[in-house]
């Protein structure tokens, strides 16, 4: 909290149903651990998205390119994150005690120089081949895990998430004796215990090389603490429980570069619950279960610019603002040196006693003490209380007020929550019902009425892989209060269309249906994409001119496909326009 929020924000009543943590403020550390081996350097056939000009793809290139791809956006969207790339199985070693392991990019907040180096490695074959020389004797997985852990532990900063992305195509490492397994498992378990999450990305290149995780890695990575296995979803809100999901163990084909890229993209955000609260199904707390809430849909926007200042030592640094009431002497020069430093460095500023708070009313301020303001914000218990059920058709789609929350059960506080939730979920879908509830989601949020809608699981083939494209669970959709609803803009003129024009309009729109529904992954935000692209061009001194502009415009899927519309409904549209004119003329005559 900076000084500004310490003053202004502490008693604001414009409480969103939930004050969500700013994801960009939650620093994560990601370490890519990429295997270098003969099999990782095996030449692959070019996939549908590979350029003919580039060197033939190898699993290693695929892995590094995917990592670079993620980095390009993350360095802009989450500039405080630490990211590193570790290669294991290289001829070169950083540390003689750990032969075969080298850092392509040290685990740190990346900078321009590091990005340029990485880019060069990917672009120049010489650089690439130089670093991609496989060791004659690859390091054991135990050492790889240990070294990775060491990299995380040696960072002084605190990270909300520490994650290791393990990329390999060797399903049975040379060192795989029972002792090796136990040793590796112990290391993996150490990482999990200290909150470092291991995300496996296993590469499979059939028919030559098929990755079978049961040969080795299942033994190693599924050894999460048994407690969490028995107790179910134990992930606590404060300290995320690191677990390897069953789905992530499934190998990824190297045929198409998009497979790995999209996997990385979808798994880069740690799955994090915003709240874990009781949900009352039968009134009077007679049937209560535990649910966790997630934000699946949230607007992502361009990060603001920072103010920077060129200091005396010629280094430009970020300047942080501090706001204080005029006349208060937080930064006064009279204070002794030590205190001054402390105050200026201190994130929060204590409120001087002469400053009071109140509400503006009739030109004056109606004063309240801090205790009274806190009292005003007491809104009752936290949780979701189901009031009853309604036909899902009654969901008012013209009354959306904010993005939804996703609910999924957890056995954390109530044993039997999952089966109860599952039964409710099943019936809501079967009967096409939604729940109506009164909800207060966190201590900071005000209560709301909401509709809770069940969503069924949908599994589909994406890039040749069976993927869950819709998670099973329920969505909490806020209902507006009467305070939030404005008048409908009633039509001054009511000109209902005739059946003839309606019929032709129907013909037009039916020809323009999107078969896959609205799939957000198809539509990238052109503002963000442009921002990433130009910022990167500026940082890495890449060209950005007309050619790039044209390329970006081509990638912008938010612009309708005019040619296709012309081909499908061009003739019909003309006809429709003529009919509307005609009908208009006729009505004018009638009037």
């Amino acid at each position, binding site marked *: 909290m900076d000084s500004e929020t310490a003053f202004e924000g502490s008693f604001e009543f414009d409480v969103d149903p939930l004050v969500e943590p700013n994801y960009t403020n939650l620093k994560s550390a990601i370490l890519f651990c990429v295997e270098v081996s003969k099999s990782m350097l095996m030449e692959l056939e070019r996939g549908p998205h590979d350029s003919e000009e580039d060197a033939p793809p190898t699993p290693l290139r695929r892995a590094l390119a995917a990592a670079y791809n993620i980095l390009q956006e993350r360095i802009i969207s989450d500039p405080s994150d630490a990211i590193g790339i570790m290669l294991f199985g290289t001829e070169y070693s950083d540390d003689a005690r750990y032969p075969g392991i080298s850092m392509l990019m040290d685990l740190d907040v990346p900078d321009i120089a590091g990005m340029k180096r990485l880019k060069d490695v990917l672009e120049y074959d010489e650089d690439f081949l130089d670093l991609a020389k496989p060791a004659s004797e690859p390091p054991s997985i135990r050492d790889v895990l240990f070294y990775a852990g060491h990299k995380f532990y040696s960072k002084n900063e605190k990270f909300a998430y520490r994650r290791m992305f393990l990329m390999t195509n060797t399903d049975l490492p040379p060192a795989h004796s029972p002792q090796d397994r136990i040793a590796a498992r112990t290391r993996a378990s150490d990482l999990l215990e200290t909150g470092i999450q291991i995300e496996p990305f296993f590469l499979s290149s059939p028919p030559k090389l098929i990755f079978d995780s049961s040969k080795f890695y299942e033994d190693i990575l599924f050894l999460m603490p048994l407690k969490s296995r028995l107790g179910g979803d134990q992930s606590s809100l404060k300290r995320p429980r690191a677990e390897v999901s069953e789905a992530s163990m499934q190998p990824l084909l190297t045929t198409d570069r998009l497979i790995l890229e999209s996997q990385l993209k979808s798994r880069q955000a740690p799955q994090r619950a915003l709240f874990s609260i009781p949900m009352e199904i039968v009134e009077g707390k007679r049937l209560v279960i535990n649910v966790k809430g997630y934000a699946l849909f949230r607007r992502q926007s361009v990060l603001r610019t920072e103010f920077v200042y060129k200091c005396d030592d010629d280094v430009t640094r970020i300047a942080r603002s501090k706001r204080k009431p005029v006349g208060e002497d937080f930064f006064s020069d009279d204070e002794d040196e030590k205190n001054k430093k402390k105050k200026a460095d201190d994130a929060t500023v204590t409120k001087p006693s002469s400053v009071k708070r109140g509400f503006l009313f009739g030109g004056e301020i109606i004063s309240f003490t801090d205790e009274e303001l806190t009292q005003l914000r007491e809104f009752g218990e936290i949780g979701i209380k189901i009031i009853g059920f309604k036909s899902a058709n009654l969901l008012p789609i013209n009354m959306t007020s904010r993005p939804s929350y996703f609910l999924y059960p957890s056995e954390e506080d109530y044993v039997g929550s999952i089966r109860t939730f599952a039964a409710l979920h099943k019936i809501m879908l079967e009967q096409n019902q939604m729940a109506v509830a009164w909800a207060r989601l966190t201590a900071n949020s005000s209560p709301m009425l909401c509709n809770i809608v069940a969503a069924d699981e949908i599994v589909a083939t994406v890039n040749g892989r069976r993927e869950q494209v819709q998670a099973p669970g329920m969505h909490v959709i806020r209902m507006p209060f009467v305070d939030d609803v404005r008048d409908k803009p009633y039509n001054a003129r009511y000109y209902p269309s005739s059946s003839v024009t309606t019929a032709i309009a129907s013909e037009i729109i039916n020809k323009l249906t999107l078969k896959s529904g609205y799939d957000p992954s198809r539509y990238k935000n052109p503002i963000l994409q442009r921002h990433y692209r130009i910022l990167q061009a500026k940082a890495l001194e890449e060209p950005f001119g007309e050619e790039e502009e044209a390329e970006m415009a081509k990638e912008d899927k938010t612009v309708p496909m005019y040619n296709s*519309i012309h081909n499908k409904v061009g003739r019909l549209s003309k006809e429709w326009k003529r009919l509307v004119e005609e009908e208009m003329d006729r009505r004018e005559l009638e009037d």
Partner: protein
Amino acid sequence: MARPRPGSKETTVFVLDVGYPMAASNMAVAEGQSDLEAFRPYVYSLIGAKVASGRKTDYVGVVGVGTEESAVELDEGYEHISVLHPLKQFLLSDFRTLPSQLIPPSTDDVQGDIISGLLIALKMTGDFCQHKKFIKNIEIVSNCNSSADFSDMEEIAAKIAKDGVSLRILTVGIGPDDLNQKNDKITALQRDNYAKLQEFVRAAKEANVEIQLLDYEDIYRKLDQPTIKKTASVSTYRGLLTLGDYNGKFEDEAIAIDVQRFLYIQRAVPPSTKAYREEAEDSAKPRALEWETKYFVRMKEEEDEDGEKEEGEKEEKKKKAVEAPKGDLKKAYRYGRSLVTFEDDEYESLRYTADPCLEIIGFVTLSDFKPWMLMSPSSFIVATENDPAVSALALSSLIHAMKKSGLYAIARFVPRSGDPRMVALVPDIDIVDGQRKFEGLVQTELPFAEDVRDYRFSSLKTVRTIKGKVLTKHHRLPTDEMVDAMRQYVKAMDISRLADGLPAAEEDPEGQEYVAPGKQYNPVNARIQRAILDRAIDPKAPIPKLSESLVEDSQPPPYLVDAVSDIARHLIEVLNVKKVEKRESLKAKDHGEGVKRKAAELDLEALLEGSRKRSRVEEERFDIVRAIGEWNKLEVEVREAQEKLVQIFTRAGEYIMNLLESEETTAEEVLGEVRLLKTVAQEMDEKGWYEEYLTRLVDAQGMSGRWAGLEAEIEAEGLREFGGE
């Protein structure tokens, strides 16, 4: 019907009866309160809302009828009438005078004529507004117990009509029912006056003048309700809705309709607090705070700086803050650790350029509509009111076609240059009482690819083991019996249509949707509004509670709860959800009673809390027999015992894993442990834990070939079956 225009001017004159007869207590609903006391909160809340709005063009005047003074210099019939507040923007200082003005006089001859009061109010309004455009209101509040001159009512109605004034009369202490029923408290004068008021309203209605006559019953229940600031809907986009390349080569065939966008849902934000400084005691008004902002950069502490660093500090802070003059600041984007600055003209190139537009990309079936994807408050797209109404007709054609085909549109929307979003356009046709017709497209933003978090969750229909086995029976999955019980409950608790709190038939005219959307007041806003008003009247007023009447709808209707009680009880029984006490609380308890506890318990605790840090391989053998033996001896509550059991399972599980890892373990040893666990699970009737555990175990033992036969042995011995059902 014309849309309300934002920023219109408004006058409201309150004609308040404060004469001696108002000191009487006539109403059952407000027993013990004088009529005057009963209506005060109403007046405070109406005027208070106007003060709170801070609108400079919302003028309030107050006429007192039955005041000691007769400040109005007019002819006879205007005795004891005074203008307490001329028309003006009401401020806190004015508001605070109200309590002292709304007090009945001590002598019974002090009373006034409300009709005279009305005439004064009309004159005030007319003088103030002249010929300018105003919304004009007059509110009369009285218990009708003073004599009044009703002789010129026809003329008065005509003037009200001519001036365009909306008149509302609120009676306290008498209502329509009092005319027929015997009520000792009602005087003949009250009856007579009230009847005349009714006659006045009726006659005016015949002359097409709408006058509201309300009694206290009408508003009593609404007193808790906050006053909602009605904000006129503002057009936030005026442009074209297009289909096809209307700017390019297919211009002649592209569809383009003139439309406007109006906000429909907009979160009403409660007032925010202001920080101010209290001046010395003698100064009357607090002074709002002025703020200043300073900028600091953190630099590495220079080594040679006076050498005065203290030990502790050196460790803690190796950086110092240096103030950066605001004029020397530049803007930059962060690129990891690096900073990227642009020249002013380069910032332009960063900007995405796009002209305002609303372009349809395609259509999607409504059955595929995912309401949880919607990102923003809903707006309406309607045709502009052009002449001729081609756009209305064209849009109507599209709306009806979409409705008929069950489709909604996906469109690219640029409300102002360079700010594109994806939106859903859903047809909405609404015909209110056969009169006000509405056709429009509901517009709400959809997520971009970057806005979606791709979280995965396990199926709720099956349980998949680590080894990939798919189970359809598991304690995490509901049984058929549970599902049936839930079906009954969900059906019974249907609140789609209720009458008197119970499900109503389709044809029942009384039937209404319970908790219909957009009909409830926000209790939080209401409470803040109330707290401010209370304190404006009385600076010592306490913080009000959340109004119960406003949160009534946060509960299922009580009748319905009673009606479904058997079904609910069955559901609760079948699902058998158990609350787990938090581990922390158990520990906390141990701390308090630690010394007195039995030795056996302490041993168990030691076992259960065994250090997790130790390597699994080296972990000492967990004596499950002993742990369970101790557990049996425990004299603790069931709840607590159950929690301990969970811990035993956990530790036992870890222990058996270790056994499996050891080269020396025999299959019989493992089976022995499993048998033991089963026994104890059966005693506790803890099928779920046992099954879960066993599934894990079978998965685990598959890890190495040595245990390949174990699963078969477990099956053979019937250890897979929990039994006892």
